């Protein structure tokens, strides 16, 4: 710039310094304002992204109505981009807070001692010691007013309470923040009013089922969560997961069908074997019955034979009775009896007694 030209500019500025200062101030203000506005979006994105990172927010929450097994986790672990997989059980259920305040609740059954994904930040109280205690998500204007110390009971109105839950009563011991619910939005629920009233986290022991309903997956992603690079990254990983998913879905379906079929087969087998056993027992019983019948008939014949013998014996005794009576009368009259006669009398008495015994036995 030439000397004279810069002199002209300096003079212009000096002559109208107020205007110059005002223009500078307006430009500075405008520039500052623009910079502020332009930087707020990246700042907000960076802040949210840092929060996600700090609390290991899941890139995926995969749900399955068939349930996940350890095989599924192993299959997903084979994808290079996947860093961590945290299984858990998540179900919406009607719950009763206190004595009669019914609402819809979301019950997370997680390994609270080892949260690798979606780490919880304790805001108040303490973490649960057992599956009979729980922490709840920080209440927002959309959730119900549940406090530390309240007891949350799974309502008996829910389906399959006995087979689903090992614990149905949870004592609230703390309040947490989860990156999964980072904004205060209305959280839709599959039960009740359709609005989740309380979100609670407890140990997985609270559930009886041996399969997981949810897999929370963290990838190795290093891009900002709001960038297009992240979206294309996730798209790529999604394709891989879907490939695994299709295979596992079929496998899991077969597994369940096989399980059911095996159970059915077992029941059928049991039926068959029980039927066979029953039949063989029935046959045995018939044989026993027949034998009994025969024995009975034998017995009857024996009895008849015995009766005949007894009758014959009686007839013999009756035949000798007059002589014995005579001998006894003579004895009574004081006639001495020869030893031979005495022996005959004793024999007779013994015969009578034997006959009576026989008759009595026969009667029986």
């Amino acid at each position, binding site marked *: 710039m*030439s*000397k*004279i*030209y810069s*002199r*002209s500019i300096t*003079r*212009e500025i000096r*002559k109208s310094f107020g205007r110059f200062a005002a223009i500078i101030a307006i430009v500075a203000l405008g520039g500052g304002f623009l910079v502020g506005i332009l930087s707020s979006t990246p700042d907000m994105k960076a802040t949210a992204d840092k929060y996600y990172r700090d609390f290991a927010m899941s890139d995926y929450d995969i749900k399955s109505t068939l349930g996940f097994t350890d095989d599924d986790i192993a299959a997903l672990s084979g994808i290079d981009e996947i860093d961590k997989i945290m299984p858990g059980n998540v179900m919406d259920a009607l719950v009763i807070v206190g004595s009669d305040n019914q609402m819809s609740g979301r019950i997370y059954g997680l390994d609270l001692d080892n949260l690798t994904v979606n780490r919880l930040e304790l805001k108040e109280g303490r973490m649960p010691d057992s599956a009979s205690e729980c922490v709840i998500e920080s209440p927002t204007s959309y959730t119900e007013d549940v406090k530390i110390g309240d007891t949350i009971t799974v309502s008996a109105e829910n389906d399959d309470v006995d087979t689903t839950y090992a614990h149905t009563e949870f004592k609230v011991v703390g309040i947490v923040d989860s990156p999964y619910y980072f904004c205060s939005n209305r959280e839709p629920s599959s039960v009740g009013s359709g609005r989740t009233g309380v979100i609670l986290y407890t140990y997985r022991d609270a559930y009886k089922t041996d399969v997981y309903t949810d897999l929370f997956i963290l990838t190795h992603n290093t891009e900002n969560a709001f960038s297009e690079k992240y979206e294309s990254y996730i798209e790529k990983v999604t394709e891989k997961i879907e490939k695994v998913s299709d295979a596992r879905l079929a496998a899991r379906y077969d597994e369940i069908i096989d399980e059911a079929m095996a159970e059915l087969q077992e029941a059928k087998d049991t039926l068959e074997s029980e039927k066979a056993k029953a039949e063989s027992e029935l046959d045995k019983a018939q044989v026993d019955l027949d034998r009994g019948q025969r024995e009975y008939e034998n017995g009857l014949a024996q009895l008849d034979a015995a009766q005949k013998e007894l009758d014959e014996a009686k007839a013999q005794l009756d035949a000798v009775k007059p002589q014995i009576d005579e001998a006894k009368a003579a004895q009574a009259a004081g006639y001495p009896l020869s030893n031979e006669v005495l022996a005959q009398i004793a024999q007779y008495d013994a015969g009578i007694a034997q006959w009576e015994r026989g008759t009595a036995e026969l009667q029986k």
Partner: protein
Amino acid sequence: MSYVLFRDVCKYYKMGDQTIAAANGVDFEVQQGEFCIIVGPSGAGKTTVLNILGGMDSCDSGIVQLDGRDVSSMSEKELTDYRRHDIGFVFQFYNLVQNLTALENVELASEICKDPLDPAETLKSVGLEDRCSNFPAQLSGGEQQRVSIARALAKNPKLLLCDEPTGALDYNTGKTILKLLQDCCRTMNKTVVVVTHNQALCPMADRVIHIHSGKVASMEVNPDPVPVENIEW
């Protein structure tokens, strides 16, 4: 070989779907050291011709030459150099920089060209040696126009173009300005082209070009120009 040459120069302006021919085949030439007056009624295309000659506008067709160089085919950048080094321009309303003194205004022009004259000397030659340190606002119209002429002369241009230089001045002041231009032409051997609508000025020129409706109506060479002092209008 003429110093300034216009050959069949056309310039059209588009106004909506209407095309107006501001210059419609202009042909003329000016020799070196001549005092040339381009005269014609308002709207005849005088200023268009001057702007094309001064490199401030381009022609749509035809040839424009100054000192053997083809102006009509120059690029924007070449035109800038052309304006800077070869042309001195004097405007009807002076166009002085208000924040600079008379001397500084002349220095401003001399700083940017190749072979300038001394600014103070030039100011002296236009009779303003006493007003060097005055700002334009402190000068009369005639004085301002003289600063403007000094500014154009200080660049030591090949061609001095003046667009109605007396248009904003009264009779006497106008006369002195015209005298100054005529003297420049005579003493410094500058080629001067003056555009005016005042027919009365024609006798003072070496060459008079009449322009009418974008065309050169007539061109006459005046072998015996009259000094300005002897012209009345």
